C-alpha cells in the first residue's frame, strides 16, 4: 500500500535545531525499503494552486488554504498497512513540532 506523507510545519515557528534533521530517519526507512521517494519543498508562498471550474482553469498564486502549518516536504511510502505507515510517520522528527498527514494513494483497479 502506498501513502503520500505530507510534512506540515509552521514556517514562522522558532528553529527546532539539529533535532529536526530528518537524515537519520531517511536512512532508516530507505534501508527498510519503505520510502520510495521524497523531497523538501519550496515555501508555500511560491505555490501555485490549480482549479478547473466550469471548464475554466483558475490559477491562484500562493497557498490555497489559510493555515499556519504548511507542507514543507513529502515522502512516498510503501507499507503493509496504515499502522505501519503511522509508525513510520511518527518516527519523522517533524511529527514532534509539526503535523504529518498521511494520504493513501488512490488504488487503480488493475495496478
Amino acid at each position, binding site marked *: *500500500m502506498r501513502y503520500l506523507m505530507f510534512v506540515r510545519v509552521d514556517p514562522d515557528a522558532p528553529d527546532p535545531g539539529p533535532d529536526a534533521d530528518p537524515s537519520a530517519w531517511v536512512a532508516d526507512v530507505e534501508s527498510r525499503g519503505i520510502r520510495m521517494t521524497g523531497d523538501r519543498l519550496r515555501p508555500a508562498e511560491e505555490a501555485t494552486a490549480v482549479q478547473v471550474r466550469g471548464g475554466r482553469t483558475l490559477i491562484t498564486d500562493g497557498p490555497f488554504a489559510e493555515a499556519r502549518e504548511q507542507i514543507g516536504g513529502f515522502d512516498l511510502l510503501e507499507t*503493509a*498497512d*496504515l*499502522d505501519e505507515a*503511522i509508525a513510520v510517520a511518527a518516527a519523522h522528527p517533524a511529527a514532534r513540532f509539526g503535523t504529518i498527514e*498521511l494520504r*493513501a494513494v*488512490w*488504488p487503480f483497479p488493475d495496478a
Partner: protein
Amino acid sequence: MTSPDDAVGAAFAQEWPRLVALLIRVTGDWALAEDCAQDAFVAAARTWPRDGVPQRPGAWLLTVARRRALDRLRRAGTERRTVEEVAVDLDRRLTSADEPTSRDDLGDDRLRLVFTCCHPALSPETQVALTLRTVCGLTVEEVARAFGLAEAAMSKRLVRARQKISTARIPYRVPPAHALPERLGGVLAVVYLLFTEGYVATRGGLLRADLTAEAVRLGRLLATLMPDEPEVLGLLALMLFHDARRTSRTDAAGRLVPLDQQDRSAWDVALAEEADALLSRARRRSGDGPGPYTLQAAIAGEHTTAPSAAATDWEAIVASYDELARTTASPFVALNRAIAVAMAHGPEQGLVLVDGLAAEGVLDAYHLLPATRADLLRRLGRDDEAAAAYRDALRLVTNDAEREHLARRLAEVTAG
C-alpha cells in the same frame, strides 16, 4: 423453557458480533458482511417461531448468511475463483460456529472487529457509531437516534468510515503486543463512553438505558475474549457496580437520590457480587499496580458493598483516590478525592482541598465544584456561604435531575 422469540433475541446478542466479524474477515467487505448478517437474522425471526430454534443457531445463521454473501458476490461480478475461496472458507467455519470462543493463532475474529472499529485513525464519534452498528448490531436508525442525528447523516458517516478502513488500509487485526496497551485503552474508552452516555442524562429519550446495556454487553464480550487483561475486568466491574445501583438512583418522579439516601435493599446483589469477583481478579492480575478502571471499580465497590452509608469505609476510598491521582493528573479525580477526604476526616479538611482546586481555576465551568463546596459549607453550618455556592452551581448545571436537587438544597439552607 425459552420461547422462540427469546431465543432469537438471545441468539442475536450472542451471534451477531461473531457472524459479522467472521464475514468481514473472509470477504473483507464491511457493508456486505453487515447486510448478510442482517438478512440471516431476519430469516431467523421469520422461521424460528414457526419451526423451533435449531440445535446450533450459530451454524444455522452462518449457512443463511453464507448463501446471501455468495449470491451477492456473484451478482457483483466477482471473479469465480474469489467466490469459490469465500465459499470454501465459510464452509470450513461452519463446524466451529457454535463454540463459545473460536480462537485461532491470530485470536478471535470478534476482537479483530472491536479493535478495528476503535482504530485511532477514525474520529472518536465514528469509533462509537461504528462499534454500535457493527459490533452491537444496532440498526443505522438506532445509532442515529443515539447521536441525535438524522438517519441519512449517520448512514453517510458509517459509509465514510468503512471506506476509510478499506482505502487507507486500516488493518483488521488485534494489535501486536507492543501496541496493545495503548490500543486497548482506546477500546475501553469507547465502551466507557457508551456507558456514561447511557448513565448520565445529558440528552432526553429512553434510549439511554439501552446504551448502558450495550456497553455492559461489550464489556462482557471483552472480558470473555481477554480474560487476563486487568483493565478489561476492572472496567466491567466498574460498570456492574454502577448498574447494580441503577434503580435507586432516581425516585419515582425522576428526581436524583443522593447515594447516602438511596434504598440499599433495592440494589442488585447478584450484579454487585459479580462485580466484586471481577474486581478481585483484576487486582490479582494488576502486576505493576492497578490501572484507572480497576481503581474506579474499587471505589464504586466500597460504596456498593457497604452495609449502610454511615458504614462506608472512606479511608479505603481515599487510599484508592490517592493511587488514582498518582497516575491520572485529572482535576475531576482531585475533586472526588476531596469529597472522600471530607467524609473520612471531616468537612474542614475537604473544604481546604476544594478551595485549592477552585483557586487553580481549571474546573470553573464544572457545576460539581461549587456544588461540593456548598455541601461542605452546609455541613459546617455556614449557611450563607453555602447558599451562595449553591447559586453558583445552579448557574452551571445542565442536567434537570441535578438542577432540581441543588434547588432543594438551596431552599433548605435559606429556610432557616
